[in-house]
């Protein structure tokens, strides 16, 4: 594979960083510990350090790490409360789980030579489908057939309502697709672009530009890592709100 672009030292393997590799060798079966498993585990460690160890002093006047833990808690708590209302707070731990996992995985993935689980559709599709199925089931359990009024826009003229209903249903089923591809696509694209710049850095003439490009992209990626976690979480809240209050 390396002999395609060997001339001039240009070797692009922007996607190689996403390869799932078993840590201890052997084939990748469903339980093999892989680099994906390792970095998911490290995100658990990061969450423990941030939220559990950070808050261990239970100080009235918080330390720095406790402030960050409280900030993360307050950020998501307020988001759930603002969007879903008081009854949405029951689902706060689930949404906090999603947010903390995505944000930790994204930021850990920014460490050079690390692996980003959230750049894989396998991960984001499971997350998005879990949200989609939970919200749909919850909508029917909470509202019964009334949940279908989500697709019947009562504020629109009667003649338009069937058309709108079709559009609403399509957009409802597209939700998990856009929800999952947005996250993985953003993370993957950023990492791949950095890798491409890194390939260009091998050519002495353009390497300063390439290094500058890597730096700029890295800054952007830091932003994207947080924003995509935020967007994923806020969309989850919006979908949850639809399940709790389906009436427009």
């Amino acid at each position, binding site marked *: 594979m390396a002999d395609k672009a060997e001339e001039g030292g240009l070797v692009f*393997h922007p996607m190689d960083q996403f390869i799932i*590799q078993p840590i201890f060798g052997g084939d990748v079966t469903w339980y093999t510990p892989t680099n994906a498993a390792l970095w998911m585990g490290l995100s658990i460690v990061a969450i423990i350090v941030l939220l559990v160890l950070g808050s261990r002093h239970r100080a009235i006047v918080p330390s720095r790490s406790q402030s960050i833990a*409280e900030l993360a808690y307050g950020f998501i708590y307020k988001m759930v409360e603002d969007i879903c209302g008081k009854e949405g707070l029951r689902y706060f731990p689930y949404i906090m789980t999603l947010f903390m996992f995505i944000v930790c995985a994204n930021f850990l993935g920014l460490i050079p030579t690390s692996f980003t689980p959230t750049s894989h559709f396998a991960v984001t599709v499971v997350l998005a489908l879990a949200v989609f199925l939970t919200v749909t089931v919850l909508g029917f359990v909470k509202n019964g057939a009334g949940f279908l009024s989500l697709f019947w826009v009562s504020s629109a003229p009667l003649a338009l309502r069937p058309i709108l209903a079709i559009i609403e249903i399509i957009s409802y089923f597209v939700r998990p697709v856009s929800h999952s591809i947005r996250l993985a696509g953003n993370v993957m694209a950023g990492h791949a672009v950095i890798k491409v710049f890194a390939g260009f850095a091998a050519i002495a003439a353009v390497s300063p530009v390439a290094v500058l490009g890597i730096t700029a992209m890295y800054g952007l990626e830091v932003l994207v890592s947080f924003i995509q976690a935020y967007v994923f979480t806020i969309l989850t809240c919006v979908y949850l709100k639809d399940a709790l209050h389906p009436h427009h």
Partner: protein
Amino acid sequence: MATDTPGADAASSGGMPQLDFSTWGNQIFWLVLTLIVIYFILSRIALPRIAAILAERQGTITSDLAAAEDLKAKAEEAEAAYEKALIDARAEAHRIVAEAKAEIQGDLDAAMAKADAEIAIKAAESEKAIAEIRAGALEAVKEVASETAQEIVTAMGGSTDAKAISAAVDARVKG
């Protein structure tokens, strides 16, 4: 990254590793495990603890504010009491001053009256003394005059009737 590992086959052939479905089962397994672990860490330890910290802080702030409000009310009360005490003290001072003034005035009046009375007594005594002196002087004048008159009359060779002479002198002195 390493390119000679067995899992790299799909990517090495130019495709996206994301679409290598042979690894999906593995990722999903680890993802679900990770999410379950995170959920239990959050819901059992982290979130209740942070919620308790925030509630405790809110409680502390609320009680501190209440205490501050309390102290403020107390300070205002104390200020009012101080003002009242000041007004009372001022009134008391006024009263004492007026009382003292009245007392002094009374004393003064009494002393004045007493002095007046004494002066009056002294004046009366003096008058009496003067009257006595005057009476004494008149008597002496009369005596001297009648004696002198008698001598003169005797020297003139007239008869000397003492009674007549003194009556004449009396008439003269009065006149």
